[in-house]
């Protein structure tokens, strides 16, 4: 096949590999023949992640990036040896587990060696006294959670991608789950890690509840997106599976009222596990049958945990919602959310109509949140071809929120779908920065946001870039992501 029938999107910066056979032989020496593949049926499977533009390309027979080798290491030491080989041969390494990232982070844009972490899938131990679980980083999220549930626990980290993402992916992209308001983001959940550095050194960060041992170096690797190290094992907080769950929903006239109600709930030190505010179009989309929510802003809450505490949380949640004239919609809308929360169908339908569709999540402090919502929706709506720009808010803190925008549209005849996609992305991100927000809440940087890192970080980006250079002088670990402007203002 030789992939000649497929248009390769990222092809300009492919690394030159002089002797593929020699590298393959070296890889086989490290991990064995059964763990190395250059078969086309395998190579094609690793040409994309789950970013929407890459999904659009799939139906059009285009491939985002093309790897040269697929490897399945089984031990940390093997990863270390592969990294040493990659440094010697100057071949890129792209860590990959479940491929569910949505910002291009796992696309092999320069070619190279895919380091598939799926064989790192063991649950090492549950420690009931410490309330921790240790696991290898390639484990699928649902398989980890199902195991914990069977043993009477939860990690509390339940992203919509739970079925299709990995522990390593969560750490790489600083993920957040649907229940994050109570249990925190992944950086709040991880207590210890084993990491292989780009040149092959293996380091371990001790598992601690909290410590005062100098700068928190471990945090550097949470959100590293496979560019400065490969996390191989991690220890997470776990919780006894909640004894009680109370489902609450209210509809508000304005998004500002819903923001105020939720802000005041958190101000009381009350943390419903799930809070989701849907703007009016998204309320129409998800709660069409809820009469009381017609043309309103729906908010759903899940309070869970100890029965007595849940009852108090419910009481305060209701008080605050009613203070801002929320209309009680009962528990049915929340049950509906539970039933549909993993039913992702849009990715399967929109590309067939050549609709370019995606979600962009951003972070904001409370005092900017409403303004960011309005500024982004108004600005993106003006882009030619945009059909929809909507939002829900699904991650809350006493100090701020994570807002999740959805855009969709049809590129006009004069621009490509990628240009349209980039325009929507860049317009959203610029509007967020202009209105005082932060460019990402839990999907990470990858390719899609990399051109905005200097605006986000300012001068401190240089420090991050120096760290990258220090740890990875040959730039072999996931090149073209996070630190490099791969899109270059609208082009590849």
């Amino acid at each position: 096949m030789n992939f000649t029938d497929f248009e390769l999107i990222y092809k300009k910066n492919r690394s030159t590999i002089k002797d593929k056979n020699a590298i393959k032989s070296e890889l086989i020496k490290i991990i064995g023949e059964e763990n190395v593949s250059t078969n086309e049926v395998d190579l094609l499977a690793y040409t994309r992640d789950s970013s929407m533009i890459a999904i659009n390309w799939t139906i059009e027979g285009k491939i985002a990036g093309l790897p040269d080798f697929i490897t399945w290491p089984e031990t940390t030491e093997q990863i270390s040896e592969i990294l040493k080989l990659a440094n010697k041969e100057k071949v890129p390494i792209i860590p990959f587990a479940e491929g569910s990232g949505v910002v291009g982070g796992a696309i092999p844009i320069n070619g190279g060696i895919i380091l598939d972490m799926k064989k790192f899938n063991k649950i090492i131990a549950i420690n009931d006294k410490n309330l921790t679980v240790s696991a290898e980083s390639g484990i699928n999220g649902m398989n980890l959670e199902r195991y914990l549930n069977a043993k009477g626990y939860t990690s509390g980290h339940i992203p919509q991608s739970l079925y299709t993402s990995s522990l390593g992916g969560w750490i790489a992209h600083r993920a957040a789950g649907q229940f994050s308001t109570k249990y925190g983001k992944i950086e709040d959940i991880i207590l210890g890690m084993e990491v292989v550095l780009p040149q092959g050194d293996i380091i371990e960060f001790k598992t601690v509840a909290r410590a005062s041992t100098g700068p928190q170096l471990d945090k550097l690797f949470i959100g590293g997106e496979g560019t400065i190290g490969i996390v191989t094992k991690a220890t997470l907080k776990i919780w006894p599976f909640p004894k009680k769950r109370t489902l609450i929903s209210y509809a508000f006239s304005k998004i500002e009222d819903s923001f105020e109600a939720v802000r005041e709930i958190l101000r009381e030190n009350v943390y419903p596990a799930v809070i989701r505010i849907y703007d009016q179009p998204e309320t129409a989309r998800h709660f069409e049958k809820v009469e009381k929510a017609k043309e309103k802003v729906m908010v759903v809450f899940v309070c869970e945990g100890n029965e007595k505490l849940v009852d108090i949380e419910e009481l305060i949640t209701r008080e605050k919602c009613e203070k801002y004239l929320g209309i009680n919609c009962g528990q049915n809308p929340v049950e509906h959310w539970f039933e549909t929360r993993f039913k992702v169908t849009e990715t399967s339908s929109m590309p067939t109509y050549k609709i370019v569709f995606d979600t962009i999540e951003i972070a904001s402090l409370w005092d900017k949140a409403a303004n960011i919502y309005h500024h982004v929706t108004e600005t993106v709506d003006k882009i030619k071809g945009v059909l929809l720009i909507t939002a829900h808010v699904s991650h809350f803190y006493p100090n701020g929120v994570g807002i999740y925008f959805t855009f969709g549209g049809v590129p006009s005849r004069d621009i490509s779908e990628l240009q349209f996609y980039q325009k929507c992305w860049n317009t959203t991100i610029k509007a967020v920065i202009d209105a005082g927000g932060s460019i990402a809440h839990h999907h990470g940087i990858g390719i899609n946001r990399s051109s905005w890192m200097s605006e986000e970080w300012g001068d401190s980006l240089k420090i991050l870039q120096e760290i990258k250079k220090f740890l990875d002088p040959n730039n072999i670990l996931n090149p073209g992501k996070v630190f490099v402007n791969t899109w270059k203002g609208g082009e590849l």
Partner: protein
Amino acid sequence: MGVFETLAKYKWMLPLINKADRETKSLLMKNFRSKKKNFYPEGSYKADIDNLIKCMLCPNMCRFDCGTLQASKTESMSPSYKARVGYYLSVGKIDPTKAENKEFIDLMYKCTNEENCKVWCPFDFSVVSLLETVRDDLNDKGLMPNYCRDQIEKLKSTKTIEAYNIYKTYKEKGIQNIETDGNDDVFYYIGCETMKFPDVVKANIELLKKAGIKFSTNLDKRVCCGAPVLNIRDMDLAKELANENFNLIEKTGAKIIVSDCPGCVLTLKERYQNVGIDINVQVIHIVEYFNQLIETGKLKPQNNISEEFKKVAIHDPCLIARNLNDTHSIRNILKVIPGLELIEPIYNKEFVHCCGWSGTAHWADKDLSIKEATIRVNELKETGANIFISACPLCELGLGYGLDEQEKEKIKILDLSELLVKVI
């Protein structure tokens, strides 16, 4: 999803589309109209393109429970990717006629038909049912893989799954054959695969006799139900076998067909409709039947189970749990066996993990099936039980590959009937 359901689902978008400018609306309409022209193959085809597309564009929401993916740990085994390759083969993006693309064709057969995907799919797809439509086109182009042709040849020559007629081995295996007198209550329909486990067949016959059932086995006239050819999609041969079975069933006059093989039950009950045959007699799995016999007092478990068979873990056959939707019969029976300690593995009932031995995967890639079997056996071992109970010959075959010789001395994989017969 039908047109009306699609419209209902996207009704919320209509006001948003309505306010778009004329050019955008016109482009959108053009895209809706051109969907087939843009993305569907030309000419005639059997592939279910609509649903292959949906599956391949999905972010793989069932991947965590796909047996072949979990066994192989390679992305190329993920369900969405299989659909993607199926689509590319169908539209000619990957040319199936080129020898170099054989590995892509093979992928269409690397599925164990366990249908865990269906449990989690937002569209309610069974991925294998999509892959089967790709196989149809491959067959029409004469591209059936050799490992499938081998099965077809065996089934054509012996009408069973072996190179010899496995039903004719009953005498040497000490299995009693009971020919019909045309007036049976029950036709005990023995699976070809169950013939590899004579103790299971003997136990079933003994139990039916103890319950006083008038039944026949008709082993001199038996042929395979046709499940393997339905998987491979040789529909002509499937119809031929279905007709033979239909005629034999008619001759028995049986009011009910009871099979020890879930694959046979599903084939007789549902899959024959694909070749235009309707079996008008009730078809049930023997576990369900034994449960009825226990509930009506015709079978009475009364002896205490001996110590060596006491600690039991259930392995639900996928087909019984997910297709026949019966997870209670096997448990009801085990619960009334005196002295038995029943232990559930983490993945059980409709969430059971496959033994690796169903579908076409064990022909296309036996090592893959053994890996899947090993994963399942390890899950069962975690229960601490030394008896693994199932009710499917393929499960018993597959799980056997997951145990090494030393383990086989300590752990026994048994059919439910083998345990039940000890206490009646």
